[in-house]
């Protein structure tokens, strides 16, 4: 139990601290890419990925620092990409919004809402044909379920019985627009469960809970052949794009933040670790390791060369 919590804690903390480093340094104007932080939301990605095996495929959005770090555990290549350097996997072309690491099964992301959902169907279709038992997960925001492509994808996955997980990471907002201004229904689960699809929902900020629900969904999927839809609620601590708090903007209250903050996923697991008898030192050591890793990743990134102009025209075609 505490081993698992330690692993979950480590991943969430890596993501949290990496993004906090972005917050600290963004005003230096060296990270020339719009950033969509997931601070506060870490439990969803970390919980879901914990339940997947490393061979399973994942697709994300422009808000996918978490997926990248959780999947690759490689802050060096992460910061190299954020700083636009040639040492990064995508050599600076991707920036924050187009992170991917196909070698780690993180197939891709997109800055156009909803667009990676059907890609998971394609990966799942390939898995199905190869009978390799893998699952393909599309992680997307609550805004994505407004788009027709979500419904088309859901319908097809249910029809073709594709081994797909639809993971809605619901922070209650599409930029500044709340769910009640976008949805002509009360409960998305109530609708989706009438497709041939398993459904689970949670408001938990505990990655272990979300991981268990995901695991359960995957085993149901395997048993029945029906895909699963996971609706996990969470809270975005900062503005939609950028690094700052924006509770003064009027579209949400600081009080709602404070409510969620009490259940901050990282503090929650940290508390449980300590209460469960893990020594404070052990946890602090994780923090320090992460600190060192991140600082060294940033330092390395800043020293790495930019791609040469000749790189511009490469790789359009194979």
């Amino acid at each position, binding site marked *: 139990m505490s081993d698992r919590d330690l692993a979950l804690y480590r991943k969430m903390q890596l993501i949290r601290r990496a993004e906090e480093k972005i917050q600290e340094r963004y005003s230096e104007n060296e990270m020339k890419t719009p950033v969509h932080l997931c601070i506060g939301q870490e439990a969803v990605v970390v919980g879901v990925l914990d339940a997947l095996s490393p061979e399973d495929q994942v697709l994300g959005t422009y808000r996918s620092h978490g997926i990248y770090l959780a999947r690759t555990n490689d802050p060096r290549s992460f910061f190299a990409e954020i700083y636009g350097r040639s040492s990064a996997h995508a050599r*600076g072309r*991707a920036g924050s919004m187009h992170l991917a690491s196909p070698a780690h099964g993180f197939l891709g992301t997109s800055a156009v809402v909803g667009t990676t959902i059907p890609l998971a169907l394609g990966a799942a279709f390939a898995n199905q044909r190869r009978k390799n038992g893998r699952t393909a997960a599309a992680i997307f925001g609550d805004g994505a379920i407004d788009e027709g492509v979500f419904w088309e994808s859901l319908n097809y996955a249910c029809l073709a019985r594709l081994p797909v997980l639809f993971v809605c990471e619901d922070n209650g907002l599409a*930029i500044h627009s709340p769910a009640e201004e976008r949805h002509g229904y009360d409960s998305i689960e109530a609708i989706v469960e009438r497709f041939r699809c398993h459904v689970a929902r949670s408001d938990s900020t505990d990655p272990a809970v979300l991981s268990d629900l995901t695991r359960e969904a995957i085993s149901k999927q395997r048993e029945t052949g029906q895909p699963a839809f996971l609706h996990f609620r969470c809270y975005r601590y900062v503005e939609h794009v950028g690094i700052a708090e924006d509770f003064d903007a009027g579209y949400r209250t600081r009080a709602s933040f404070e409510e969620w903050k009490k259940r901050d996923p990282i503090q929650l697991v940290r508390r449980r670790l300590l209460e469960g008898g893990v020594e404070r030192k052990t946890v602090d050591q994780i923090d320090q390791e992460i600190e060192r890793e991140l600082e060294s990743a940033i330092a390395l990134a800043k020293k790495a060369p930019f791609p040469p102009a000749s790189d*511009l025209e490469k790789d359009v075609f194979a």
Partner: protein
Amino acid sequence: MTRTLSFRDALNEAIVQEMDRDPNVFVFGLDVPDHKRIFGSTKGLVERFGKERCFGTPLSEEAMTGMALGAAISGLRPIHVHIRVDFLLLAMNQLLNMVSNFRYLSGGTLEVPLVIRAIIGRGWGQGAQHSKSLQSVFAHVPGLKVVMPTTPNDAKGLLISAIRDDNPVVFLEHRWLYDVSGEVTCGEDGIPLSKTNVLRRGKDATVVATSWMNVEALKAAEILSREGVEVEVVDPRTIAPLDDGPIIESCARTGHCVVADYDWSFCGFGAELAARIMEKCWGKLRSPVSRVGFAHVPCPTTRCLESEFYPNAVTIIRVIEKKLGLKEMDLSGESFYTWESRFRGPF
């Protein structure tokens, strides 16, 4: 009567005036009424005209475009706003299969007074999915008018005309232009669509530019004029239907032309201009029309490559020097428009 306004405020003024004038006008789209107000261009609307005439939507570009068409043929005058033109790729079916031909197929009985505002251009590492322009795609298919204002005065006057037009108009606004200020007329008159405008007179070469490229072209012209080279800068403003008269006249007179379309050149409006100018100025040009446009690759995020991706005043200067057989000027002392000097991220 004029006063100085930013491009953003000029757009806003046009909308406010038209909504005041005509209760059928309404504005909708993602993020339209939030506190950021589409980079300020929709500010004050919801307060003044209420939620009925200014509202946000779910993320459903195809359906919302169809709804706009349905409202337009029912006598309303929708302004549908998109914070990036790239998102219109989700509504291409409505735009190119429906909006563009609905009037024609009705035997001319239906009118489609619909404005689609969409923001194009760079920001702060926008990358491949937030950097398209698409004017040539819209212009390629008959039935859509396509407008690209450059100056704040044009932003206001052309938007007024677009709103009053009984046809669908795609109105493309460059993000960087929002912060540009200029003299803007106070009145309620629109500037007619499909009237090409000469931004600067010159006798040695013509640059036909669209949107932000006019800013770069004017900068190039200013620098070159210090060397005694007088460049004419021509802004079509409306891409379709195109008023090519002043373009042809200018190119025939100067004998040299650079087309600087804010887009990829291949199969683009840049190609259209070049083909048209060389055909209609046959025998009068002293060099072939040169095209300046985006590198033919998806737009990369990292600044160093992004800077290579976009052409600028320097690109234009070098092309003109070559055309006129001049040697390359030393531009090291010049200050060019860069993000660093003017635009602070993230968007």
